């Protein structure tokens, strides 16, 4: 056998340091320092006796707030990644689980993200009792829910589409499941995962702004977690335009920083995992990645845990044991049948229990019926859950709930069915912020649902509200499509322009649109426009960018020979659009449209109720309904709102987008 000499490259002495280390090492140290700083703030004590959390509008605090916000984003991203790897892998690999896990994911994905904030605050506060981290966790969880689902779907889809040849190679090489996961499955799914994570984080900025102000049960004031989002919320409440500008600048820098320090390098690094047989011409570049790759000493430090990894690696190896075939061993038919039957039965029972529990929670033990009659809605009179109003009710002998809610049924009981109103109560009912039925006596006659529970008529009402929101989403997504599609195509057909505009569009998508809401409020209030119509553009403010940059990407990808053929045959004007452009960008448009509508549904919760100082504009819709009931504790009304929105989004996607997507896949693919 020939003696193998080490290659000359190995023999050349290499200094342990390179000059790049001079940049990287201090950089890393600064990052670590900042991390500790933020972590210390995030884990301060927090309990019933600590003062309310608030933020200051002094711009000098913004760097620190930015740091905290950044940390929240990062934590949510890491959490999403961990969840994705575990959940998608189980769904793709453990037989049968897929049939449960994927529909669950599909449904969770359609639920409005901001609803999760209300739903989970109490849980996290209980989990981290006495520590601020409970609130932090609630905020992080809300951001997490805005990012995780499409990442999980993307990784799951990758696991299901692993190239057959690589699966066979991995099996022939007898890789252990652990080795296979890290050498085949994760690398193959990585480019899509990174892309989806980037999209998710873009959306996440929108929700970080909305999820840093949390209402906590037992506290009169909303809690402002130190962060840019809380800063913006306070600025909006106080109508402080200057603070808004500072916040805008900070967010601009944060998004830029996140992009440059995190995503650019990761995208550039993920290039090598693309499953392609030839090198593509334009590859992503990142100065940060180059820096890291050239800093020799830092790399050496980063490789310190390698022996542990290697130990784990070899520990999992099959050694001389046989590998596993790509097919499962045949099982006795009867046994498989029985197992299937048992599993299906379990799913059926589980779903039944779930639906039953849900209905019980929403409607009360009578499931919305009492004494053979359908119960009527029992509204909360203290619509803003204002503590002052709650106190005034208490003074008049009506004890409000823990969150300050006062129910119609309580009023009826205190006034003999609305017949005998004391003068104090009468005056209180006319105070702003208190809702009372026009005919109290008549309202009290109806059999009322238990306090805080939903009545069947309300369910119908909520579906009606959902229909309005659906109408808004549809109309405005169509509208922005009409505006941005031609612009996107114009840009996409001109490569030099594309290079400039595409990053801007991506940045636009990441920049939280809620920052611009006050502008609209001021304008609408000033011109006395109808909020039912004019609030709606806010819903697509964030989503429109997806339409733009997908239109650009789609038209930039039209093959040159097609464009040349179109020119040769003199295709012009409408014919040019109908025969070439529209079919060619259709798949990209569908991708953008799905993202844009999903974002709009989610944004409706913050867009249908907007505020600037004392001005509050409300539009009739499901988003406004959820927003109104989201003050205070999670309650059946929020639950109902989320449920209905989830169902509507699911139906919307099934009925419209999925069909368009299939059409795009079958007919308009260009490869």
């Amino acid at each position, binding site marked *: *056998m*020939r003696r*193998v000499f080490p*290659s000359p490259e190995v023999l050349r002495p290499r200094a342990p340091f390179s000059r790049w280390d001079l940049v990287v090492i201090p950089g890393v140290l600064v990052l670590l320092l900042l991390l500790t700083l933020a972590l210390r703030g995030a884990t301060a004590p927090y309990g019933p006796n600590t003062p309310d959390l608030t933020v200051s509008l002094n711009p000098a605090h913004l760097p620190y707030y930015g740091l905290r916000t950044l940390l929240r984003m990062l934590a949510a991203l890491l959490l999403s990644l961990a969840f994705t790897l575990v959940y998608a892998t189980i769904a793709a690999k453990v037989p049968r689980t897929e049939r449960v896990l994927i529909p669950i994911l599909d449904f969770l994905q359609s639920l409005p993200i901001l609803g999760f904030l209300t739903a989970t605050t109490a849980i996290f506060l209980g989990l981290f009792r006495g520590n601020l981290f409970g609130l932090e966790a609630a905020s992080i969880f809300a951001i997490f829910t805005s990012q995780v689902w499409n990442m999980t779907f993307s990784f799951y889809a990758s696991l299901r589409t692993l190239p057959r*040849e*690589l699966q*066979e*190679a991995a*099996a*022939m*090489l*007898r*890789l*252990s499941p652990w*080795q296979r996961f890290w*050498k*085949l499955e994760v*690398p193959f799914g990585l480019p899509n995962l990174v892309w989806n994570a980037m999209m998710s984080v873009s959306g996440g900025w929108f929700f970080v702004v909305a999820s840093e102000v949390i209402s906590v049960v037992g506290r009169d004031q909303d809690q402002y977690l130190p962060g840019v989002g809380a800063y913006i919320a306070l600025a909006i409440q106080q109508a402080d335009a200057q603070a808004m500008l500072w916040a805008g600048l900070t967010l601009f820098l944060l998004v830029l920083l996140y992009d440059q320090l995190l995503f650019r390098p990761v995208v550039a690094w993920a290039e*090598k*995992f*693309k*499953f*392609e*047989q*030839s*090198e593509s011409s334009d590859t992503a570049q990142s100065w940060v990645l180059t820096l890291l790759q050239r800093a020799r000493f830092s790399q050496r430090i980063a490789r310190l845990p390698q022996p542990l990894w*290697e130990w784990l*690696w*070899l520990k999992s*190896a*099959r*050694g*001389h*044991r*046989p*590998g*596993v*075939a*790509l*097919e499962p*061993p*045949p099982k006795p038919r009867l046994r498989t049948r029985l197992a299937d039957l048992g599993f299906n039965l379990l799913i059926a029972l589980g779903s039944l229990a779930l639906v039953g529990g849900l209905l019980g929670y929403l409607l009360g033990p009578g499931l919305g019926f009492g004494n053979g009659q359908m119960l009527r809605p029992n509204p909360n009179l203290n619509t803003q859950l204002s503590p002052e109003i709650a106190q005034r009710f208490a003074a008049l002998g009506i004890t409000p709930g823990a969150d300050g809610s006062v129910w119609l049924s309580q009023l009826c009981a205190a006034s003999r069915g609305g017949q005998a109103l004391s003068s104090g109560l009468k005056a209180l009912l006319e105070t702003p912020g208190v809702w009372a039925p026009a005919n109290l006596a008549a309202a009290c006659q109806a059999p009322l649902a238990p306090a805080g529970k939903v009545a069947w008529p309300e369910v119908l009402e909520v579906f009606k509200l959902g229909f309005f929101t659906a109408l808004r989403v549809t109309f405005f997504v169509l509208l922005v499509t009409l505006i941005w599609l031609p612009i996107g195509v114009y840009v996409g057909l001109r490569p030099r322009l594309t290079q400039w505009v595409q990053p801007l569009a991506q940045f636009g998508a990441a920049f939280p649109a809620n920052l611009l809401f006050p502008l609209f409020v001021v304008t609408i209030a000033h011109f006395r426009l109808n909020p039912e119509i004019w609030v709606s553009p806010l819903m697509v403010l964030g989503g429109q960018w997806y339409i733009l940059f997908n239109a650009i990407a789609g038209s930039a990808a039209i093959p040159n020979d097609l464009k040349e053929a179109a020119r040769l045959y003199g295709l012009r004007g409408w014919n040019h659009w109908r025969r070439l452009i529209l079919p060619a960008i259709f798949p990209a448009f569908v991708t953008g449209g799905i993202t844009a509508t999903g974002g709009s549904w989610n944004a409706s919760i913050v867009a249908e109720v907007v505020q600037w100082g004392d001005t509050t504009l409300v539009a009739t819709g499901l988003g406004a309904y959820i927003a109104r009931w989201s003050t205070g504790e999670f309650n059946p009304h929020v639950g109902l709102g989320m449920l209905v929105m989830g169902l509507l989004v699911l139906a919307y996607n099934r009925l419209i987008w999925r069909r368009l997507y299939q059409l795009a896949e079958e*007919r308009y693919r260009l490869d």
Partner: protein
Amino acid sequence: MQTKRKTLLEARNLTKTFTTPEGKPFTVLEDIHLELQEGEIVALLGRSGSGKSTLLRCLSGLLRPSAGEVRYRGQPVQGPMPGMAMVFQSFALFPWLTVQQNVELGLEAMGIPAPQRRQKALEAIDLVGLDGFEKAFPKELSGGMRQRVGFARALVTEPEVLFMDEPMSALDVLTAETLRLELLNLWQSGRLPLKGILLVTHNIEEAVLLADRILVLSSNPGRIRAEVAVTLGHPREREDPAFQELVEEIYCILTTRPAPERATLEPLTLGHRLPQAPVGALAGLLERVAEGPDYGKEDLPRLAEEMRLEVDDLFPLLDAAELLGLAVLQAGDIQLTAEGQRFVKAGLEGRKRIFAERLLQQVPLVGHIHRVLNTRPTGRAPEERFLRELEDYMSTEDAEKVLATAIGWGRYAELFEYDYNTGLLSRSEEVASPAAG
């Protein structure tokens, strides 16, 4: 070397059935017996659809036989065994790993620590002549170099049996030839612990060049139809008359239908698996045969060589020509029939007319579609209607292929039209039905 040798790998009564989505089983391999002895190269040769790749995967433990068993050194094979390695047609390299990392992968699975891994990998890379490319990514390499990485990755684990699944068919002719020779050199040099090679190929010459034994598979379902021993010494020359005789012999085996299949020359059934032959290629083949030196008769090996067609491409065309009665196959030769001669001499319209006549006469499926469309007042029918009928005879996938072929032929012959968007077949409007004329 005719002494009693040890058996490396054997298959007994191996049968492989797949299940269609509708739950209907169909058999790909039936009752295969085969042995791989120490020190021999065995080639599996067959047309497409003969299940040769499936057989290789059953033998290597990637797939489980539905019945029968596979034994490696006397032990039942339940999955890929240590001592087995495979080289793939599409190389199956991990694009995110460098050459060296790809080669080390098999060693990692064996639990070999990093320093030894590195050493062995470098040796293997050196062995296949890729030193200097250790740190390259597969996409930087040419096809031939990629397959060398494939060989290095297989050989580095020091396997006893090497499975090769059409290893050269994705390479250009020259590169493939070089690799074949290098492989033979390695094999004969005794530098490898390798004890046997099982090669799947659809290239007859490749089989004759490399193998000690060639097993010819029949199609639908795959059975071993013939075994040809190759006793020529190495190096083998293509020009050697003995070599050419062997090639000729294998062509004869492949073109002669076994007794049960003979019956198919009688009127076919609706469920006959139409060969996937595009009309353009078929016409080209017939023209070439007509223009050849023997005027309407041609030797298959020569034809294949000249038209650069391998078994998988050539045989569907031959089958189609024979099916339509445009040519007959005999003893490794193709000969045009009178109809075939007429077809070649006719112009475009004439060819279409002849083709339509032949289709209606010889292919029940086309006739059936034509009849259905003509009896319907609307003159239209959805493709699903015919797919369902075909699925009584074959898997969904095959049914789709067969129907696509029938539609392609029928469209060419202007017997009917097909709308891709709606999936509707319709009576041809402009041209009067040739069957009526």
